[in-house]
């Protein structure tokens, strides 16, 4: 079995990945839900049936040229820590991390494709791209899906489209989403009206880890909710329009904050720097929220010479499972807070205090 940690892109390299508009759009993702025609959905199938489904699907995916060099494993072969690391990398859902026998994962080397087997559906395949690239992600997953349909018999109905365990995913089975860093809109207190108007367009706004999670670090996920009655392209195009608007609003919010309330901005960023550079104990939640302000400071040129990748890497390595992975002893939450603070102080050693214009 391949070692997951040998396989995964290092946090440093992951932070160097760039895409269009990545100042605001941290990543793009398109996920398709598919099921086999002649099997019960994973939530209802008994263990032997789930194992059989996994044994059918896993080799079929691994054999695709796109997945030639991949990490393909049954979930019960992964430790709880490994699964948590995959969640922190946004490669699998928290629900999938809770799965064991009869579920699996196939992840390619570039981490541009990740397929969850027997999550809520038999197949949840995702294409991931850095920055604002939802169209590219759709094209990529569309190709992967077309290659896979030659090997597996999907559950498909002429009227209802691709059949899914939950009727909310029926039809296209598509979820198009982007992860947005919106500190400007949060500071300007414009985020709630934006969320409301996005909701009115039939799109969902969620926190960092998807359904039912809070927006840590001013990171929000925007995605489509309806999957039936529209083509995939129509959904992608609508998301593109809405996301472009949100990007514009965020840029405007940042600009007008700097013009109208520069002291508020400098105060927030300066304090965030002060705490991060000097704390001796810090929770992951506080770290994320302060790193978000540091990231904003970098975007606003308040930390000349400091690359955004420094913050993006810290975003990842300060999370509980990533932190735990670096230490062989099992850490308590308090011990992690000490270690996290040490790590952040060390990384910020060569970053000078924010300049004020």
């Amino acid at each position, binding site marked *: 079995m391949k070692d997951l940690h040998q396989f995964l892109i290092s946090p440093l390299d992951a932070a160097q990945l760039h895409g269009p508009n990545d100042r605001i759009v941290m990543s793009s993702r398109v996920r398709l839900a598919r099921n086999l025609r002649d099997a019960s*959905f994973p939530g*209802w199938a008994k263990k032997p049936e789930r194992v059989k489904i996994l044994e059918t699907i896993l080799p079929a995916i691994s054999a695709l040229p796109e997945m030639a060099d991949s990490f393909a494993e049954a979930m019960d072969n992964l430790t709880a820590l490994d699964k948590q690391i995959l969640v922190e990398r946004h490669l699998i859902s928290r629900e999938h991390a809770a799965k064991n026998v009869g579920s699996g994962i196939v992840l390619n080397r570039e981490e541009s494709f990740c397929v969850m087997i027997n999550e809520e559906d038999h197949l949840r395949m995702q294409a991931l791209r850095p920055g604002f690239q939802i169209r590219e992600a759709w094209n990529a997953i569309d190709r992967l899906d077309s290659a896979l349909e030659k090997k597996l018999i999907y559950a498909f109905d002429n009227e209802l489209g691709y*059949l899914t365990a939950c009727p909310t995913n029926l039809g296209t089975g598509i979820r198009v989403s982007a992860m947005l860093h919106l500190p400007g809109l949060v500071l300007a207190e414009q985020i709630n009206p934006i969320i409301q108007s996005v909701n009115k367009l039939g799109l969902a706004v969620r926190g960092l880890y998807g359904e039912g999670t809070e927006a840590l670090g001013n990171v929000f996920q925007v995605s489509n909710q309806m999957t039936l*009655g529209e083509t995939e392209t129509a959904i992608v195009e609508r998301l593109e329009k809405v996301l472009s608007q949100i990007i514009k609003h965020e840029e405007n919010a940042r600009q007008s904050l700097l013009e109208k309330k520069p002291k508020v901005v400098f105060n927030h960023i300066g304090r965030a720097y002060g705490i991060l550079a000097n704390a001796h104990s810090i929770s992951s939640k506080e770290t994320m929220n302060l790193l978000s302000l540091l990231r904003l400071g970098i975007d606003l040129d308040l930390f000349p010479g400091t690359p955004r990748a420094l913050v993006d890497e810290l975003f990842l390595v300060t999370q509980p499972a990533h932190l735990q992975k670096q230490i062989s002893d099992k850490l308590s939450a308090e011990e992690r807070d000490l270690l996290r603070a040490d790590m952040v102080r060390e990384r910020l050693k060569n970053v000078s205090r924010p300049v004020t214009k």
Partner: protein
Amino acid sequence: MQCCVCKEKPATVHLTQIVGEKMQKLDLCEDCAKAKGINDPTSFAMADLMLGLGASQVLDPSVGAAEIKCPRCGFSQADFKKSGRLGCPECYQTFAEGLAGLLKTMHKGTRHTGKAPEALRKSRETGDRLKLLQKKLAKAIDAEDYEQAAQLRDEIKVLTGAAPAKTAK
């Protein structure tokens, strides 16, 4: 469907109630519904939609609430109520009636217009075309445009393989 009270007039008011785990369904004619004090049938539409998964198939209130189960996987309405997920692809047929309303509230439309597996794409397109032609045919017959109707009928024959395709002129 007959009114289950007077057993004479056709039932036009359908009332579904969930009591505990059991579902009861009543089909009433307009008069009996009024007599029972159900004046506003539309107020029950919502309850029907949310709870009445495939309700009309259960029927016979005298026997009590027998439950529909998916013949392929054994999944029941109660299971759906509990989890909000279905048991297998075939459940969409089993519970089609109740799901129809649910899908309407959930999605932009109730008909898939997106991607289809390549193997099915052709038959899907043929099906769409066939439906369109049949609609046109009905219209042409209504309008007593028999020339048009004959032409449409030939096209349908070709499409369904009932007749060999016409050779090109």
